[in-house]
């Protein structure tokens, strides 16, 4: 009889939900009761909405428990581990019987995330058992040439997963063709898009997949040095990467004759970013690695010709690298069987916002947005009305409800005005104001603009001012046209992706929700009831009982009325805090 395995998910979001306490509780009881179980750690399987997660694997099968705090953990140990009685009420997935969360996994295909949540990311042996570094060994054993590696990646059809969507094989070919002995390969792990955490989960869950992908890329283009540029905001990812690098070195997967490929030297290190969204742009990232302000430069020369320290450099995203070993090991056909004609393979999305099942999903390209949000995501929180979904973060755009059947692939998404981006998918319901959302993104890009190009530096500032004015009820006729004009100019006159895409959220919200802009500007109303300064709170005379609660709670004494009399809100003094609205037990306050 094999030992029962108890595995706790310790990714960043799991830890934030209290998974460390769950782990400690199980460890304690294990020691006290001298339990003969195999307690392990793993990372995120993507079910963020059910964290903390605990897996139990015993002779009878596989059980995944969700929402497990310390008390529930002890209950599971007692009832399941000791008395072999699975605690059905907490089970979210099992191979023995269906659960209501099964729909979350239906249609998902795990390629990049193949090992996430199934291995202890701090133990290389567990990764090896799941096939890590097998692709490198294949290159060594079968003597696959550099050209053949590039051809395989080209044949797979994989396109850059960081957002640009440029064919990875082409990129490698350019770097390969660049003359020079000293070349670099960089992994872009500066995931700055607010609302996206695919790369974080991947690095925390399966760092070896990324290291192996980079080593393969290094071999193909002829680079001996790799750099992983990772956000400092991801401390756990950095720790696990460094552990993984140490272990890979010790096992000979890095260093001289890396992985037994004769004459191939490859090593890498982690470079901590210092917090600048623009560093996701290739040339800005290179400047940052060199220790400078992360400002983009003019291209050409492209990094493939003159990049880090003016040497040929290839930069790919975390997810792209994680896919590479799979492609090399299983062949391009195994990869491009998934996806659509022009967008091959799978894509990881971070599903967040007003969706029931928020988390990470990996789906074949071409799945419809409807499928992702309503099948995998379980629909909208509190069963409200779905309004739009933001794809591609501050560089992307929103896709409205009537385009919900859009398949998610590079070209279909681009056709809507949004971009695929790195994979952030923020779902919005009827209570989200689209004008305010556009203002939010402009606020972000305006702060993150490096200041090099005038149109981006000043243009985003002016757009933000206009949008702020509109949301505060001071919009004027002609504002929409001004925004559109500025958008075009910023797009045309900015050097890098940040400026060229910054107006996207504004343009798409104007395109699909022009009526909301007009309501703000002409009627001074916010249809989503979200822009505070456009709200009015009024007492409904028929319903008011004169209980005085609202008058007592009003922080600025803007409500008149004596006991058992109908109250009245003085609009000129009201600060629209909503306190009366939330306090009234008789629903006698009207919000409009």
């Amino acid at each position: 009889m094999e030992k029962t395995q108890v595995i706790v998910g310790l990714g960043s979001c799991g830890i934030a939900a209290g998974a460390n306490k769950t782990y400690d509780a199980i460890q304690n009881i294990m020691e006290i009761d001298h339990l003969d179980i195999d307690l392990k750690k793993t990372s995120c399987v993507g079910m963020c909405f059910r964290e903390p997660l605990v897996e139990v694997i015993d002779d009878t099968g596989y059980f995944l428990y969700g929402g497990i705090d310390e008390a529930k953990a002890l209950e599971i140990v007692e009832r399941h581990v000791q008395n072999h009685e699975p605690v059905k009420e907490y089970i979210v997935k099992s191979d023995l019987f269906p659960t209501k969360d099964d729909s979350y996994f239906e249609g998902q295909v795990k390629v990049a995330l193949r090992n996430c949540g199934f291995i202890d990311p701090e133990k290389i042996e567990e990764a090896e058992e799941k096939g890590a570094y097998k692709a490198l060994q294949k290159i060594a054993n079968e003597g696959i040439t550099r050209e053949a590696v590039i051809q395989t990646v080209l044949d797979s059809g994989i396109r850059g997963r960081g957002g640009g969507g440029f064919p990875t094989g082409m990129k490698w070919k350019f770097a390969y063709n660049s003359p020079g002995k000293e070349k670099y390969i960089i992994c872009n792990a500066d995931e700055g898009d607010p609302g996206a955490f695919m790369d974080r989960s991947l690095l925390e869950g399966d760092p070896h997949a990324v290291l192996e992908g980079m080593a393969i890329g290094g071999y193909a283009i002829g680079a001996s040095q790799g750099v992983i540029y990772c956000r400092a905001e991801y401390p756990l990812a950095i720790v696990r990467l460094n552990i993984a690098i140490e272990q890979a070195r010790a096992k000979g997967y890095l260093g001289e004759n890396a992985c037994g490929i004769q004459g191939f030297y490859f090593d890498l290190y982690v470079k901590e970013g210092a917090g600048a969204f623009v560093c996701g742009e290739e040339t800005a990232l290179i400047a940052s690695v060199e220790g400078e302000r992360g400002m983009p430069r003019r291209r050409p020369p492209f990094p493939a010709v003159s990049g880090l320290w003016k040497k040929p450099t290839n930069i790919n995203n975390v997810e792209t690298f994680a896919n590479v070993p799979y492609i090399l090991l299983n062949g391009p056909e195994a990869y491009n069987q998934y996806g659509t004609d022009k967008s091959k393979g799978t894509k990881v999305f971070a599903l967040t916002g007003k969706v029931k099942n928020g988390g990470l999903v990996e789906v074949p390209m071409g799945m419809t947005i409807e499928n992702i949000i309503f099948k995998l995501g379980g629909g909208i929180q509190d069963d409200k009305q779905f309004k739009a979904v933001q794809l591609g973060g501050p560089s992307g755009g929103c896709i409205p409800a009537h385009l919900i059947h859009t398949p998610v692939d590079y070209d279909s998404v681009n056709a809507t005005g949004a971009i695929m981006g790195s994979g952030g998918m923020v779902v919005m319901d009827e209570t989200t104001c689209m004008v305010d959302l556009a203002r939010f993104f402009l606020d972000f890009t305006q702060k993150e603009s490096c200041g090099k190009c005038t149109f981006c530096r000043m243009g985003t500032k002016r757009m933000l001012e206009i949008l702020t004015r509109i949301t505060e009820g001071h919009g004027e006729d002609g504002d929409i046209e001004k925004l559109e004009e500025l958008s075009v100019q910023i797009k045309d006159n900015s050097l890098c992706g940040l400026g060229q895409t910054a107006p996207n959220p504004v343009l798409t919200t104007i395109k699909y929700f022009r009526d909301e802009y007009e309501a703000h500007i002409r009627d001074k109303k916010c249809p989503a009831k979200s822009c505070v300064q456009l709200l009015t709170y009024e007492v409904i005379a028929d319903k008011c009982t004169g209980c005085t609660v609202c008058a007592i709670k009003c922080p600025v004494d803007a409500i008149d009325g004596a006991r058992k009399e109908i109250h009245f809100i003085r609009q000129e003094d009201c600060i629209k805090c909503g306190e009366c609205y939330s306090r009234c037990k008789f629903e006698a306050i009207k919000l409009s």
Partner: protein
Amino acid sequence: MRISRIREAQENGQAAAEELFRLDPLIKKYKGKKGSMIPLLQGAQELFGYLPRKAFLKIASETGLELSDMYGVATFYAQFRLAPVGKHIVKVCHGTACHVQNAKALTSALQDTLGVNDGETTEDNMFTLESVACLGCCSLAPVMMIGDETYGNLDGKAASKVIREIKLNEKNAS
């Protein structure tokens, strides 16, 4: 651009007396290496919690890095601070997911509870209130982080309660 972050140094006598010798191993490690400016500044901030003026001067004179370049880098990246911070840094996430879940309400409630504006430190040097872009815990939105502890699914009241509890603990400890 983050011009708004460039504030007049709020250094008092205490901070000026930082034990600058603690920088020595760091300088030894990175001196003369290319691309070392960001790690040097990150290391210095790790030691002092912010970048004291004197640390700039010392690093510049001992490594040969230009003061202007260092200042340029320090004001470019969100991570670097030029003024001392409170004992507890309250980071309120304003990523997209948190925004649509009303992170604004958290910041405004915390501003009331702490009596400071976003980006400021309380008079007793106990709390610094900060807005950050994304903490990557989007499914728990809205989120705030104090020290290493992340608090999820908050509203204004719950966030204020956390602060009051920390205040109480501090009071009991002293």
